[in-house]
């Protein structure tokens, strides 16, 4: 796509793009290049020089059981976050869509938790499940269940999943409701006249017509779970216990800043870069078909 009418000039447009070029060059391309460069070296024990190791960092990482475990953790975590938050959001959107009056009120009430930062969501859920003072953990204790996410890896995973999914319900609800409201009512009524009950209508008509929205949300939520949940993990578990909630992004931070292992951290950045790249391509391929750029 090109504009037919354009202005003349050479220096003016260059001047206009200059701020963006400078900022992206300094704070984006240079650091990204550095990450790739550093991933090929390891520092000597005294941090005085760098030794070229080629793909050594990558070989080491892929053979490292902790890194492989972090891959599995990330996969489990992202799938759970995506399924839980999309499931609840779809359920609420289907209900809100059935209302003739009042769906706007529910929408207003449901969207604002979008504004709650992941790190704040983490603190709220940590408070509810705190082993000493948490309300939910106290009532669980009353029921005879001894909740302790500080020691139990599965409970820790459950907690970070719920806290991350909770913050995401608003977003998914908004898109699902818009998707549902875009389905022509006449189609659904025709099926109702033919005697299809609610569940049949949902399975055979509504859900297939909703699939573009669902697919879009799948990709967006996986990206969210990969990158934007750092705050939740850091506030609730700091990756523990025994790394059971150390997702890939958390590991880049833990190895690079806490462990000061720059070569490995950089190599991990590059691996993440490839993953984001793939996800972005999937997203764009799909969006090309749906929205005209």
């Amino acid at each position: 796509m090109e504009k037919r009418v354009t202005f003349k000039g050479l220096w003016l447009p260059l001047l206009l793009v200059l701020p963006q070029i400078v900022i992206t060059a300094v704070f984006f391309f240079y650091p990204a290049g550095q990450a790739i460069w550093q991933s090929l070296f390891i520092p000597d024990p005294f941090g005085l020089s760098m030794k070229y190791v080629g793909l050594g960092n990558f070989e080491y990482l892929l053979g490292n059981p902790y890194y492989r475990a972090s891959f599995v953790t990330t996969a489990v975590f992202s799938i759970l976050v995506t399924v839980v938050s999309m499931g609840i959001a779809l359920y609420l959107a289907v209900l809100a869509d059935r209302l003739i009056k009042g769906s706007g009120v529910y929408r207003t009430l449901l969207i604002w938790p979008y504004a709650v930062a992941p790190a704040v969501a983490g603190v709220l859920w940590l408070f509810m499940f705190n082993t000493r003072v948490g309300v939910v953990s106290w009532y669980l204790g009353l029921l005879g269940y001894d909740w302790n996410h500080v020691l139990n890896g599965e409970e820790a995973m459950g907690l970070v999943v719920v806290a991350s999914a909770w913050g995401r319900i608003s977003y998914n609800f908004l898109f699902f409701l818009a998707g549902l409201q875009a389905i022509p009512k006449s189609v659904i009524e025709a099926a109702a006249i033919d005697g299809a009950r609610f569940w049949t209508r949902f399975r055979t008509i509504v859900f297939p017509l909703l699939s573009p929205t669902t697919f879009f949300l799948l990709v967006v939520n996986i990206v969210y779970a990969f990158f934007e949940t750092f705050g939740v993990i850091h506030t609730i578990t700091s990756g523990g216990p025994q790394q059971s909630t150390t997702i890939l992004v958390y590991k880049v931070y833990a190895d690079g800043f806490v462990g000061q292992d720059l070569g490995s951290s950089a190599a991990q950045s590059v691996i993440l870069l490839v993953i984001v790249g793939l996800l972005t391509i999937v997203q764009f391929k799909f969006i090309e078909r749906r929205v005209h750029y």
Partner: protein
Amino acid sequence: MADHSGMVEKRGFGLWMTHLGLIIGLLFVFFPIWLALVASTVTQADIMDPPMPLLPGEHFFENYRKALVSGINAPVAWMMVNSMIMALGIAFGKIVISLLSAFAIVYFRFPGRRTFFWLIFLTLMLPVEVRIVPTYEVVAGFGMLNSYSGLIFPLIASATATFLFRQFFMTVPDELAEAARVDGASPMQFFRDILLPMSRTNIAALFVILFIYGWNQYLWPLLITTDPSMNTIVMGIKQMFPSGDDFADWPVIMATSILAMIPPVIVVVGMQRLFIRGLVDSEK
């Protein structure tokens, strides 16, 4: 929208079940926030003796005053100022540089235009979380640790907004630019008097999204603000937890959590229409 009463909407018993289902969902969404609100109005003793009360207490002013004025490491009022500067800086900064560069790539033919376009396209792919270590080194090299520019610049180095404005400018009728040219208007006059006013809604919608994005940043401020007086509120909450066996000061921490939510929630609720539009636009 359901603009007529069709036969598939529920009435009577079914209608009540629908409302009930939604209310259960609302309770799930609201409960954590309600609990934080309650905790911010009671005393530490109330919380340390579980189960804590589920209705607000009488220590609202006391807890919030303590948080805002003295906080734990730094006054929360100060952290909120830092967050506000960061969020506004990111929103304004990104919108300004993106408007200018989108104007240039849509309305001019200049050498390197295609290359530039693809370079900024690449930036869409890499969130700051992925390149933290080298970006940290760059910022440290410039002496920008513990500074507002260090908080802001690395987060505006992406081109999502440029794409959005480019897309919008492409839909502006060619006749407008033609008329401006015939009337002898300079490119910048066209930009200021015609293009900017036309982009008002897009700018506002994007502003809402970027403000929330900036306010809610966590990892980046955590890395570069080692001085408590430069902490932002969202990252500052975690710093309020004691590292040893001491007990956390829950009423103050929860008051801070509520304070951290207020500005972005006001923006979302107050500008709901723009917010939804911004959300839909920025995901394209």
